[in-house]
């Protein structure tokens, strides 16, 4: 349903720009009925992106703890790569959430909050990638503190985001 509509409106050439630049435009909301997107069951890719970010950021936190306790640099290398992977997944999830949020005709407070939390998680996650790019122990303690914060944010964002989807389906 959703994909058919999207493809048709894209062919009209009225999809991308009006939607992003002026989401409240009446023409856009009628031609691209994005509320349909949230009424169906959650897209498996979106679920994967949202839920997958959680264990990756958890991996950053656990690896940082192991590094702080052991001084074994390999744990920090793990943390850096896990954080990079988490940024890719959560970044795509964030993009998806923002597009869905902008396109939604009926804003759910829950999904808006989820998007805000996900944005915060990504921004702090990105800062943490820069902190992890500092050499050796220069990452500590800020990197570990940020890892705790980012994990909490992404867990909450993922929970709320998936929960909002479930409520939309039930409604």
């Amino acid at each position: 349903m959703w994909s058919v509509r999207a493809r048709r409106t894209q062919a009209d050439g009225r999809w991308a720009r009006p939607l992003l630049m002026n989401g409240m435009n009446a023409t856009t909301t009628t031609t691209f009925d994005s509320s349909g997107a949230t009424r169906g069951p959650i897209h498996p890719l979106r679920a994967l992106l949202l839920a997958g970010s959680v264990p990756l950021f958890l991996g950053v936190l656990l690896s940082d703890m192991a590094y702080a306790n052991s001084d074994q640099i390999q744990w920090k290398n793990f943390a850096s790569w896990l954080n990079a992977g988490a940024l890719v997944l959560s970044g795509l999830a964030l993009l998806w959430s923002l597009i869905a949020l902008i396109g939604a005709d009926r804003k759910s407070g829950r999904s808006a909050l989820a998007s805000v939390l996900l944005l915060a998680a990504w921004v702090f996650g990105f800062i943490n990638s820069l902190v992890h790019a500092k050499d050796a122990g220069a990452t500590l303690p800020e990197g570990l503190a940020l890892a705790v914060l980012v994990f909490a944010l992404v867990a909450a964002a993922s929970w709320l985001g998936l929960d909002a989807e479930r409520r939309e389906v039930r409604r």
Partner: protein
Amino acid sequence: MKAPALSAFALVPVAFLVACTGSTDAPVYGADPRLPEPQRGLLPSMKIAKPALWGDRLPQVPQGYRITAIATDLQIPRQTLVLPNGDILIAEGRGGGAPALTPKDVIAGIIKARGTSPVKGGNRLTLLRDADGDGVYESRTIFAKDLNAPYGLALVGNRLYVANQDALVRFDYQPGQFTAGGPPVKVADLPSAINHHWTKALTASADGKFLYVGIGSNSNITERGMPAEADRARVWQIDAETGAHRPYATGLRNPTALAIQPGSGQLWVAVNERDEIGPNLVPDYVTSVQENGFYGWPFSYWGQNADTRVRPQDPAKVAAAIRPDYALGSHVATLGIAFSTPAMGPPFADGLFVGEHGSWNRDPPSGYRVVFVPFQDGRPAGDPVDVVTGFFGDDGKTRGRPVGVTVDPRGALLVADDLSNTLWRVTLASQTAQNAGGTLDAADAAPSATGAASAATRR
């Protein structure tokens, strides 16, 4: 800090001194540099100056001196050696290739590659000969090939030692030889796992019994882990006969050049210090090397300044760290040193030439020049003086990057440039004119402090 330096060298015919503008440009050099507090933002500063061709330009030298390119189209020239008969050997190669361990390694590798030559390393020694002494090196041969990133060179009697990135090897050498008689003989294996800092500097003791090899650390500041630093960041003393080695001095992060001081026989080293704690930390330096001395890396810098990035910390090692003799400025990347002789002319009669490859992580960039550290009574005395500049042009482009510097006892300074793949030769302008006039004796008559043979073993 800069003004007294200028007046002190008012008599020296030096055309260019480093401009001193802005706080990041404050020079941190000399025997007692004032070190700022460590600082590091979220992003490390990186500034890679775009390479450009020399075209009609030349590097600048002080008035009364002259610079010529005596060899071009080399394959990454690093260090050079002047043989007793005046021939020049050039070590060409590119080593390293440590694997990327972190996302940062991947990104930094791409950025840094933009500031180096795309030419493949030659893994060879090129020999240049100027048979008639006119300053033009008309003969050029491949002395040896199939080496593994050769860097340090030293001649002891009829033995030519070459420090590959993984082994010290030896050729038999007869004066006048154009090519090596055969493949080299291995003297000793050198630490080569990972080889983050791969260059193996080399010099021979004054009596020729020992060889000193500089082995750089495997990281900036232990970010590849402590086990990766076993046998790294030190100078080895190797017995020329048996190949047996022992650490001569440790805690030297990246000892990129070694030289024996004429007269005293004292070993000197140029060391590249750590990055990412500020544009003016930590100064690269030259220092006389105390036997069994520990110079701080990784636990501390410039004596007892502890580096908090190292885990675990080691207060006992910090307390034991020796302060180096002379700071050259941060991130200048000293890659070559050579003691001068009076034949280089009065301004440079007594002191040390230093080749500065130039920074990649400082804005504005530093280094990209050859400086002269004047000596008095065998110790550095005074601020560094520019000798060859213009590698980093005023248009913001880089045309060359100095590596090894070597003094020809007949009165010439050789500068290897691994960006434009050129060997530069700096001479007194008057001397060159004399030679060009056909008086071959001029070169031989030039005063030599050490004699050709011992001078040739110096680097």
